């Protein structure tokens, strides 16, 4: 069964410093992996997705993630945090190349950005 584990429930950074949000996955198949962001009282917005192409995936707003099969990890990074990055981030796994897709979400990491 596919699952993801987000290793930190909260991450605090200062504006302008790097961001690292950690995610490990478990999958019997070659996974599709995603990062979504959720701002307060908003829906989920796709940041980036990995679907077995390049292992380094670039997303929106300067975020990127690296798929490491040997470590079963898909950590999200950003070189320099901005105040507007404060939100809840979800690592998500999905079956690849099936007629039916079900997204399995991690428990989320709340990113706090201080001035």
């Amino acid at each position: 069964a596919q699952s993801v584990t987000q290793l930190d429930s909260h991450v605090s950074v200062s504006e302008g410093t790097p961001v690292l949000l950690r995610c490990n996955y478990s999958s019997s198949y070659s996974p599709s992996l995603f990062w979504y962001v959720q701002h307060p009282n908003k829906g989920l917005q796709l940041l980036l997705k990995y679907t077995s192409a390049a292992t380094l995936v670039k997303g929106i707003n300067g975020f990127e993630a690296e798929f490491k099969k040997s470590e079963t990890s898909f950590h999200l990074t950003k070189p320099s945090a901005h105040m507007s990055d404060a939100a809840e981030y979800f690592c998500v796994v999905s079956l690849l190349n099936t007629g039916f897709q079900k997204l399995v979400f991690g428990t989320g990491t709340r990113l706090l950005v201080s001035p």
Partner: protein
Amino acid sequence: DAGVTQSPTHLIKTRGQQVTLRCSPKSGHDTVSWYQQALGQGPQFIFQYYEEEERQRGNFPDRFSGHQFPNYSSELNVNALLLGDSALYLCASSLEQGGGYTFGSGTRLTVV
């Protein structure tokens, strides 16, 4: 370009009552999935509709049911509401042949 539209945005119901939530998918999308997000948790898959049929279901009781209409819009119905049903209910639309999901902003259901 209209994204996914959900209504209502907020709802308060009493235990034992029934509720219907509505979702209009993104233009061109034919598949609708519903998720429940309890406070402090990640979204949990409820079910998915395609061609007006429930195609897959998560670990939710039969009190949760749904419908998809010919125009691809969808409803989520919950009967005999429990306090534990209080959550943000998210609708996501997609294309059956693949591609990404587009999420709505959700309906916040509070059961008192």
